[in-house]
């Protein structure tokens, strides 16, 4: 199994979710994160103090999939999350050794 972690632009969530569902993924976990990268941020001024804000709001999606689905899922994310502008985000794929469904105790691909 693989665990795929993708950092995307927040407003792309619904599209990505739909694409993943279409790709046969039934569950995922989303976290609000701040990203730092090539995309430049903005400056905020509070009275005298100026702050360069270089961390931008992003969403991190984590989805565990059977190995054979991994490539398809990566493609689905790329297709649905892309706007073509800097800051679209990244996908990171790692191997996953074990998955357990807490409710049933089912293991591995049955648990996904």
């Amino acid at each position, binding site marked *: 199994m693989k665990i795929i972690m993708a950092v995307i632009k927040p*407003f792309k969530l*619904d599209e990505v979710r739909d694409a993943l569902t279409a790709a046969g993924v039934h569950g995922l976990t989303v976290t609000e994160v701040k990203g730092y990268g090539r995309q430049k941020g*903005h400056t*905020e001024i509070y009275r005298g103090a100026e702050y360069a804000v270089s961390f931008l709001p992003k969403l991190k999606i984590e989805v565990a999939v059977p190995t054979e689905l991994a490539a398809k899922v990566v493609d689905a994310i790329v297709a649905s999350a892309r706007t073509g502008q800097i800051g679209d985000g990244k996908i990171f794929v790692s191997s996953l050794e074990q998955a357990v469904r807490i409710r049933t105790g089912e293991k591995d691909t049955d648990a996904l």
Partner: protein
Amino acid sequence: MYRLPSRGAALGLAGLALFLMSGSAFAEDAAAVVAPVPNKGDTAWLLVSTALVLMMSVPGLALFYGGLVRTKNMLSVLSQVFMIVSLVSVIWVLYGYSLTFTEGGGTLNAFIGGFSRVFLKGMTPDSTAATFSNGVVVPELAYMAFQMTFACITPALIVGAFAERIKFSAVLVFVLLWVTLIYFPIAHSVWYWAGPDAIADAAKALAAATDDAAKKVAQDALDAVNANAGYLQQLGALDFAGGTVVHINAGIAGLVGALMLGKRVGYGREAMAPHSLTMTMIGASLLWVGWFGFNAGSNLEANGTTALAFVNTFVATAAAAMSWLFVEWATKGKPSLLGMVSGAVAGLVAVTPASGYAGPMGALVLGLVVSPACFFFVSTVKNKFGYDDALDVFGVHCIGGIIGAIGTGILVAPYLGGVGLTSYEIKPGAGSPGEYVMAAQVLIQIKAVLYTLVWSGVGSAILYKLIDLTIGLRVGKDAEREGLDVSEHGERAYNY
């Protein structure tokens, strides 16, 4: 709400006492000598009301609206409301008050005032303004400040319609033009008159006239006094605290704006849930509290009618909150807080023109009726036609205002518990019941509604177009995505 040319010399209480002591009869001619002095209870009430109406705008309305937008646009809404209040109050003392509440030139006077109070020229702590009662005046400065808060909140209502996508600079320019060309004229049309004492004096002169020639002269003078009023005032339109002037006016301007700016990016596709219904609830509550200043303050005095307007404001709001709740519960399955407070605001809007005219049971019925209508507009009509009136300025303020304006014509009926119409001519020097025919009054009310819809609708459309062609109305797509707080104001609302 009417303004009397200020009187140069206002005597103190001591002066009045001295006069009372003079031993001469309390004759009419003597009365003419003594200019009325403001009662301190009235002054206190009017000033408190003014503060309450300011509180309606900031923080009230700002929070009510702000809570409904997404986090990233919170500050933009707060900023727009705050700056509109600031801008308009400066305009008001510079020339707005003058244009609205002084006599304009010739036939123009039906539509706009003049320049005699530009920069508040000639206004001192002793200047007074008329009320609805003969012989009762209030400090003109207090009256001016009270009316100022109305001019401030009305354009602030509009911004809800095109929230989350308009340029801040466009808002400022639009408001500057809009109050000047739309608000001041309509307020003048509805509220400007010569005041009850001018009518009483003319009516007395007519009664005192003996021969026919004198009678004709006196009649002409009386007609002139009556004609010295705004167009809708002359028509006899009833608008106690601003159903047409404030709510219909702002509501239609909002709708036109929403149409001309177009929908928000992602509208209908992305979730645009209110970022803080807590703030919306605070705002709605402060609107309710402040609205007593708006409605009961519009009586200018602190008397039984003020209490009536107060009670009506309370009851209509409560009834409307309940009726929205139950309609929503029945049709959508759950009673929501946003529903209740939307209903409350709809009730406040509807009772505004009626507050000093209807009886409490009339106000209650008005409240019960307005919510279902507004609910239908915000949940069905809006979705059907697909316009993005982001915070339902049209659905609540315009529709609620129309129902209130027409309802006022009905509920003022004495046989429905209303106070009836007041004539200042029949018994000069004291208001007395005038003739009331429901159908006629309702027709007048409808005319006033249409007048406002057309003037404000067309006028606003022209202004939006103008601004769009010059500095532009709308922010860029990226700026909108990022949120106006950061892109327009360089700040974020929350850094938790």
